[in-house]
């Protein structure tokens, strides 16, 4: 089967398409040259439809939609925007549209979007009109949960997860803010951060204020969550509420800091991370300049280093939270894009890697499209 990778970069949208063997890849693009593309996501319910999060250096954020697999794009009629602030209220304006998640299978056309500053938005018409999710954006605790901490590019709301068993059961994450859960379709939310370390907070048992980098929910075992956090890698098996730090089993000299985390779509126990250097002043590059993917086949109880084909030394790239993904082939393919504009691919679950494109702009996201 041919596979497509949608590559959002700091300077536009690129597409990689493979042949059936996944040996040959053809690069197309750029589309939207010069635009900052944070995320491009295919709708699994209607694969011809895509939604893209964009802005430019000068202009405000917006969304684009396509109903022909990305050949043509249309700007959203109403991009995500906070409601007009009341008098005396701190005014909020979307600076970046950062994250896109298709809604539940029972709600065709529905999408969720996360922004910086942290806001949650929903569309029910394939991404053309967006409305604020008041239950989160106007929650009485919102000002504390989304306190406006300025991480380098802003305070991001990301990792919106829709429970495949229940459209009303949602998770989201904020960097910096933590993980939150709703069981009523987004009307009310509660923090879900027990067990997560936060060495940058004075209270190590804080209810919120954590820094999740990426949270995923397994599609076949939705009670299984994984989280790559600023302070380690974690697993949570609901209905438990306390995360378990599975990264403690990683080699000490590598650590368990990183941005992305990817699970096998058919095996909830198999998961991959891409560690980065979170020591001293946080270089956020491959530890020791020797990039490697680490795989666990037992839900994080042990880890295996996978670096065959990756640079052996002096490779200092970073892989951001949306820039690693898997395809759907029986022998699973894995992909990641670097801040230096390279895309690396494995067609054997990470056992070996090869660079399939280089010299792109800084890569923000790599997503798989069927």
């Amino acid at each position, binding site marked *: 089967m041919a596979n497509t990778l949608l590559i959002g970069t700091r300077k536009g949208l690129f597409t990689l398409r493979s042949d059936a063997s996944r040996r040959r890849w053809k690069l197309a693009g750029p589309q939207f040259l010069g635009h900052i593309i944070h995320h491009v996501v295919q709708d699994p319910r209607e694969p011809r439809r895509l939604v893209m999060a964009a802005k430019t250096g*000068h*202009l405000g954020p917006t969304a684009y939609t396509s109903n022909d697999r990305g050949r043509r794009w249309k700007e959203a*009629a109403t991009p995500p*925007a906070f*409601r007009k*602030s009341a008098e005396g209220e701190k005014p909020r*304006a979307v600076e970046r549209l950062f994250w896109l998640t298709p809604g539940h299978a029972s709600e065709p056309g529905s999408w969720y979007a996360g922004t910086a500053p942290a806001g949650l938005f929903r569309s029910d018409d394939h991404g053309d009109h967006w409305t604020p999710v008041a239950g989160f954006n106007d929650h009485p605790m919102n000002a504390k949960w989304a306190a406006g901490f300025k991480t380098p590019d802003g305070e991001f709301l990301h990792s919106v997860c829709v429970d495949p068993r229940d459209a009303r059961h949602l998770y989201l994450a904020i960097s910096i803010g933590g993980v939150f859960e709703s069981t009523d379709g987004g009307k009310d939310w509660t923090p879900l951060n027990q067990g997560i370390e936060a060495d940058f907070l004075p209270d190590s048992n804080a209810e919120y204020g954590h820094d999740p980098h990426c949270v995923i929910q397994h599609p076949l075992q939705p009670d299984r969550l994984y989280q790559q956090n600023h302070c380690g890698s974690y697993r949570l098996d609901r209905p438990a509420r306390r995360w378990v730090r599975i990264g403690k089993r990683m080699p000490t000299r590598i650590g368990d800091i990183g941005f992305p985390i990817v699970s096998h779509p058919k095996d909830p126990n198999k998961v991959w991370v891409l560690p980065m250097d979170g020591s001293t002043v946080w270089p956020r590059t491959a530890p020791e300049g020797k990039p490697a993917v680490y795989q666990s086949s037992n839900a994080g109880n042990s880890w295996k280093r996978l670096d065959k084909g990756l640079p052996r030394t002096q490779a200092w790239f970073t892989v951001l939270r949306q820039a690693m993904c898997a395809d759907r082939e029986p022998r699973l393919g894995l992909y990641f894009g670097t801040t230096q504009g390279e895309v690396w691919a494995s067609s054997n679950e990470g056992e070996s890697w090869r660079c399939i494109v280089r010299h792109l702009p800084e890569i923000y996201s790599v997503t798989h499209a069927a």
Partner: protein
Amino acid sequence: MHTVRVPSPLRSYTAGAARVHARGDTIGGVLLDLERAHPGMRFRMIDEQDRIRPHIRIFINQREVNSLDEPLAGADEVHLICALSGG
């Protein structure tokens, strides 16, 4: 009717035109008229709290303005400028 000079990042909304015309007694009125003719254009310059976005500058003739309430006279020209925004 005012002449409005459109910077290159916004010309995708004006079919490539560098100059368009719009009606309005204030900057805010001109921008609303532009939005009617070129849907989506206003939000790229003005946020949901009606503030001019950080890298947008608006001039009436040679004078920079910071409020959408700035009045316009008959022959005034409006310059929409995209300020430097990094590499």
